[in-house]
């Protein structure tokens, strides 16, 4: 549908603020640990597209999720990953980009057997 605006050329003048070029070489990636709603929302990170998936798991997630009592018990080989709505078996040594994770991609993960504080999904 054509844009409804006073300026007929409005659509051509739109400047998208969150273009990947504006993030200084990073792309924005969202990560959400399912069944752990004490973290109120998915977390947002600016990450290099070349970062190995394994580094996300090993270096990033423990910093931000590590305080949850369930975190040390995670069996990473059993984790179920979904990227932008599609299940993914990540190649840990490959980059985010090579794993199909792009700018503003959303990564959700489930940790079987771990469903929050006293099984409350918190």
């Amino acid at each position, binding site marked *: 549908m054509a844009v409804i605006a006073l300026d007929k050329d409005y659509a051509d003048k739109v400047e*998208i*603020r*969150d273009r990947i070029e504006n993030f200084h070489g990073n792309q924005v990636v969202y990560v959400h640990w399912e069944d752990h709603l004490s973290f109120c929302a998915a977390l947002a*990170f600016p990450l290099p597209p070349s970062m190995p998936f394994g580094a996300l798991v090993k270096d990033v997630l423990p910093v931000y999720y590590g305080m949850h009592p369930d975190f040390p018990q995670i069996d990473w080989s059993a984790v179920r990953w979904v990227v932008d709505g599609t299940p993914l078996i990540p190649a840990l040594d490959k980059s985010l980009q090579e794993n199909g994770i792009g*700018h*503003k991609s*959303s990564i959700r993960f489930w940790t079987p057997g771990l469903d929050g504080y006293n099984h409350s999904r*918190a």
Partner: protein
Amino acid sequence: MNANVKLGLKQRYSLLTRGLDWETTYQPKEKIFPYAEFEGIKIHDWSKWEDPFRLTMESYWKYQAEKERKLYAVLDSFAQNNGQLGISEARYVNALKLFLTGISPCEYQAHRGFNHVGRHLPGVGPRVAAQMQSLDELRHAQTQIHTLSHYNKFFDGFHEFTHMHDRVWYLSVPKSFFEDARTAGPFEYFIAIGFAFEYVLTNLLFVPFMSGAAYNGDLATVTFGFSAQSDESRHMTLGIEVIKFLLEQDPDNLPIVQKWVDKWFWRGHRVLGLVAMMMDYMLPKKIMSWREAWEIYFTEAGGSLFGDLARYGLKVPKYADIASAEADHISHQNWCTFYQYSQAAGFHTQLPTAEEMDWLSEKYPTTFDKYYRPRYEMWAQMEKDGKRFYNNALPQLCNVCQIPMVYTENTDPSAVSGRVSEYKGDKYHFCSDGCKDIFDDEPEKYSQAWLPVHQIFQGNCGGPELEDVLKWYRLNIGADNLDQAGSPDQKMWDQWMADRAGVGG
């Protein structure tokens, strides 16, 4: 004509408000009113506009001046008598901080919006009405600032409210709401603010804050509320008149108006989530729960309103059912968010006490114990163990309402709800179908959103570290943020109470 004959009110009103216009001669009318047509609204006869209240400028000034005199007399006496000592508990003041940083600047935005509409609608009737509302909104901004300035003498978090409104992450929620309305055409603005906000939702904003003030001993804020009340009822009347006028003028207006009502109801519902958490968590003495307020002011009052409007073909806003179902969740979800981001908030937080948790269980029998109590118990345990829970990453935000994506699926309140759209090769994320629909209708507009989290990542907010960003917000670290317990506010209050007990012997 005998100059001494006194005119009747109606005649006088008509002389003072009509025939002030002129027909243009050397410029076409559309150049004088360039905003009048692009939205597609068809108006055939502006003279059909019925003024809902026949208020001349002369009597307007008289009424407002009288109200100001009364208000400022109370404010003076509040200040002279150290009225701040009469509030229920120190933490009540956090609700006022949220009001001053989140709401008062919006009054100013409403002033500017109505000023614009008051210039650009071709009909003289609505133009006069919009100009009066514009003055009301400016008065509300001023009187709120003056009322709350007394608290600024003692408490933290009030000192940079306009600066904070422009920068702080959660204040982008009300800020972007008004900017969205103000950058729309004049008719959409009128529906957005005049109808959806002022008519459908205003009681859910004002009643909680003003009754909250009354329940918690804050006479100054209550008096401000009374002073604004007659203006608010005038605004509501205007809001309903606009809807009726547009719908009566041309049947083609209906789908456009319906789309705006749907959109602005949803936008308003999201903003009011801040009020919801204020009611359920920030008032030491509670008025009623958000759920109860929603029942009274939306389900019942809104139900009869849309019953009346059905004769024009206007329907209950889309997703009203979802919003009603969310009334069992949003206050908890929002407060959990502020608790874990307390380090970046301009007011203090705390875990609900055992009594408050019981009150919440009683008010939210189907949701609180099942979904929210366990979170608070976990965090309470962590506090006890000296490991107070902070979320140290930034949250994903909804691209439309700009709230962290904390809301859950109606079908499963333990699963965060997320929607996504693609536009020009980029992904855009939303908290709900309501926000996604708004984006999909105008992606050109919302792809330009200034999302606080992304702006921090882009390096536009003072620096990469939390401390850099808080300084850029002009938030006094260690004073304005973090928990109520241990805050300078609480220490000062405890000292006051101890001194008072000493004097009382």
